[in-house]
């Protein structure tokens, strides 16, 4: 057998206002280099770290949401190594007593539940950024580099799984679900392209029960699909090696996006000795039951629960996924559902009117300023035939783009469906007298002509008459002739 055995190591930037150990702002997108820095995050002589309480709270929330045990006693440690983006020459992290341990995420893979266990979650600080200047793109071709410390000190949580994942697809699903959970918690934007979510993978091939193969580490994966592709490539590569009767070398490999393959990093350095020891500048953390309970109460309904609930409403799995994958969208859905009740119809409206709009304009739901009560009112008006579907669509558009209150527009511009029979009969009589040829045709038996006549009536009412009502009245009048 050739069974892939995969473990993931995920780093997520926490969306706190300030860095982990100093009060610098965590904003670093589109900023000139070295703008949000201070002596502390730059590792100046004499500085000391002070923990950001919110970061600890976010990390605990992550642990609770991932079903972990939250450690009563947890401490920080120094991870010592030299690299220019590491200003102190050590990273403050957590080594043997992390904040959270022994959790899990359950995934739906091909109709079955797959549990991926979480070994640990811990807090650590991010490093700065390096810009390599030189003849080529790669590190090895640069002539020199520039260091920017804006990112140094931003809080990270590192989430490590047990090697429970057995396919590239499972790995991708895991990462997507993890990201979703972090976004639901509001503790990280989980954006792989922007670097607020990073993932390294460890993979080996198991050929015998009970024996584990040699694993390689895959780095530089920058999207969910790269993760899947990189793992697919690596699995094949390792299997080929094993088939040839050779041994897989334990090493770190780099995913080359351009050439779609993993490449061995030529650094022949032996494994770094990080010389971990307890951080003397920071007292340990003791998480009380009180803290845990308060934070637990702040956790919203998570994706798994929400999925269950929507499936019970008999929405299709595809529709459920659409809703759940965007917390703001499904929060809105829930709000509307509370006053409306017909989940399927509600979802259909959302999907057709709102989501298509978002797609066209490359927006996210949270960018919209839309009130659930008004939205529901529109749907109800269509249900009751008070307005036509096309009118509702148009009014909704104007609401979304120009923020005009739809209910106000409907009244002000008189967009309600016209069902006043006498008013309609007058128009019908007019249309009949102005279209004698069509009427003749109808009398001769060409019954389809009625559609033309209906069209004329609709034109007169500027589309505001109910189609069925007009057709019925017209038939009545025609029959009278």
């Amino acid at each position, binding site marked *: 057998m050739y069974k892939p055995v995969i473990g993931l190591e995920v780093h997520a930037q926490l969306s706190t206002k300030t860095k982990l150990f100093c009060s610098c702002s965590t904003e670093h997108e589109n900023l000139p280099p070295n703008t949000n820095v201070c*002596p502390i995050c*730059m*590792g*100046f*002589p*004499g*500085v*000391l*770290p*002070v*923990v950001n309480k919110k970061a600890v709270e976010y990390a605990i929330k992550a642990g609770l949401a991932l079903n972990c045990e939250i450690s009563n006693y947890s401490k920080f440690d*120094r991870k*010592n190594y*030299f690299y*220019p983006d590491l*200003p*102190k*020459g*050590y990273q403050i992290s957590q080594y043997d007593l992390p904040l959270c341990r022994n959790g899990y995420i359950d995934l739906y893979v091909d109709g079955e539940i797959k549990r991926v266990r979480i070994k640990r979650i811990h807090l650590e600080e991010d490093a700065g950024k390096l810009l390599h200047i030189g003849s080529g793109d790669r590190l090895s071709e640069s002539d020199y580099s520039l*260091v920017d410390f804006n990112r140094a000190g931003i809080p990270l949580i590192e989430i490590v799984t047990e090697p429970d994942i057995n396919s590239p697809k499972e790995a991708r699903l895991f990462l997507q679900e993890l990201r979703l959970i972090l976004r639901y918690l509001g503790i990280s934007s989980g954006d792989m392209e922007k670097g607020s979510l990073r993932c390294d993978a460890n993979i080996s091939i198991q050929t015998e029960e009970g024996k584990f193969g040699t694993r390689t580490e895959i780095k530089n994966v920058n999207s969910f699909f790269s993760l899947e592709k990189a793992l697919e490539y690596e699995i094949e590569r390792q299997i080929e090696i094993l088939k040839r009767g050779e041994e897989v070398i334990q090493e770190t490999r780099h995913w080359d996006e351009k050439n779609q393959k993993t490449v061995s990093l030529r650094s022949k350095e032996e494994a770094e*000795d990080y*010389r971990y*020891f307890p951080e*003397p*500048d*920071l*007292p340990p953390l003791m998480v009380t039951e009180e803290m845990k309970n308060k934070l637990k109460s702040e956790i919203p309904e998570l994706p798994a629960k929400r999925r269950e609930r929507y499936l019970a409403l008999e929405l299709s799995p595809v529709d459920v996924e659409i809703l759940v994958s965007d917390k703001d969208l499904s929060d809105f859905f829930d709000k509307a559902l509370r006053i409306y009740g017909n989940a399927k119809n509600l979802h259909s409206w959302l999907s057709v009117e709102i989501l298509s709009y978002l797609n066209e304009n490359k927006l996210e739901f949270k960018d919209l300023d839309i009130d659930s009560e008004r939205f529901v009112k529109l749907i109800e008006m269509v249900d009751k035939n008070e307005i036509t579907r096309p009118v509702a669509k148009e009014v909704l558009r104007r609401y979304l783009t120009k923020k005009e209150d739809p209910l106000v527009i409907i009244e002000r511009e008189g967009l309600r469906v016209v069902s006043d029979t006498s008013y309609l009969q007058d128009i019908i009589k007019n249309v009949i007298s102005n279209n004698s040829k069509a009427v003749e045709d109808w009398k001769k038996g060409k019954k389809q002509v009625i559609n033309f006549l209906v069209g004329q009536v609709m034109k007169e009412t500027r589309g505001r008459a109910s189609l069925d009502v007009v057709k019925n009245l017209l038939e009545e009048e025609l029959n009278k002739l």
Partner: protein
Amino acid sequence: MRTLREIKKIYENKEANVKEVVESYLEKIKEWEPYINAFLHIPYEDIEKQIKELESKSPNLPLYGIPIAIKDNILTKNIKTTCASKILENFIPPYDATVVKRLKENGAIIIGKTNLDEFAMGSSCENSAFGPTKNPWDIERVPGGSSGGSAACVSAGEAPISLGSDTGGSIRLPASFTGVIGLKPTYGLVSRFGLVAFASSLDQIGPFGRTVEDIAITLQIIAGHDPMDSTSSPYEIPNYLEGLGKSVKNWRVGIPKELWYKGVSEEVLKTLENSFGVFKEMGVTIEEISLPSLEYALPVYYIISTSEASSNLARYDGVKYGYRDFTAEDLISMYKQTRGKGFGSEVKRRIILGTYALSAGYYDAYYLKATKVRRLIRIEFEEAFKKVDIIASPTSPVLPFKLGERISDPLQMYLTDIMTIPVNLAGIPAISMPAGFYNNLPVGIQFMSSFFTEDKLLQFAYAYQQFVDFSKKYPTLPNKERV
């Protein structure tokens, strides 16, 4: 050549203004510096600015117009801070250490930065990259280290008070060698923010002075919680002056047999004999106690402090500040050459020791073991303070030694700290008081007390100084002697 009380009187009676007082000290500095090299840097322009700023401040501030010298491993904004190292030779800090801020807020004038063993690593002040400081009592001898400059300048009268730092005795030893008072507060009492870290779990900033009252006044200003230092004590601080002058009758003084006699030189023992008589006159009871784990204090200290130091000094890499070797063509060479050339031998030795003690395969036997023995030492002190109020010992096992005498054998040098090190390991406060002279060389006695009982410690030291007072005994300028 005055105490704080005397300087304050001068201002009150308008006998002189701040500029004049400061200038008199600058004169003294000019006289002594060619002989002792206590100062690395006198910021003349900044001093003028400080004096000017003082004009708009209240003369009732506790340290109004008091000149104070600061050890050059404590950051002073816009005033060069070098840690006596080539690697920070031109470093100009963009911020003030918390203690410096507090001193300035209370009217003090920073008169200069004093010499030290490079990065506070040393016991003799011979490891400075800018030349050693000499002992004002005998310029062929060391002033002790690592706060040699801060001690020497108060000893010679170049400043009435100064600040030093103490990791394994670096305040108390030079105080003993130069005949002044030096206090190491309880770990966590004084903020370490802005103190260049040597060993994070051992470092503390403390004052030098000539009277216990001056020590208490200074401590009152610099002590107390600092939100920028997570290891700083959150507790309220007492009034350190209140107890001065109160009786210490019937207090119990512990004499640990491990710190007396064995390893202490005849000369030191002889000079300190006098103190036992003094204790009798003070009305205190003397009790012999035993602290057996002290025998292991030295290796524990040198493992823990070098381990922490090896990590704390990793930031000196030529990237963000300080010296860089520009001839290196690639990063790793740049790191190695910068640090190889920028650091002195003792610093390099300790970095290697510490790196070794933390490395894979050695961590358990060295670092982990040391932190366990550290707990044993601490427990022993805690137990001892249930039985006694004060523990007394010689500050140094030897008289101030000659320059060059111990420099070639690091282990010999380390043994100088054998009396002072246990205090830092336990985290308790201790003070070195001038206790006598042997052949005109100062000998100090060390008093320790329990955590956060500096008020008691100072009360006791004050009482001692009523009987043994060298506050008015100053060394004479070497050229004067030759006449």
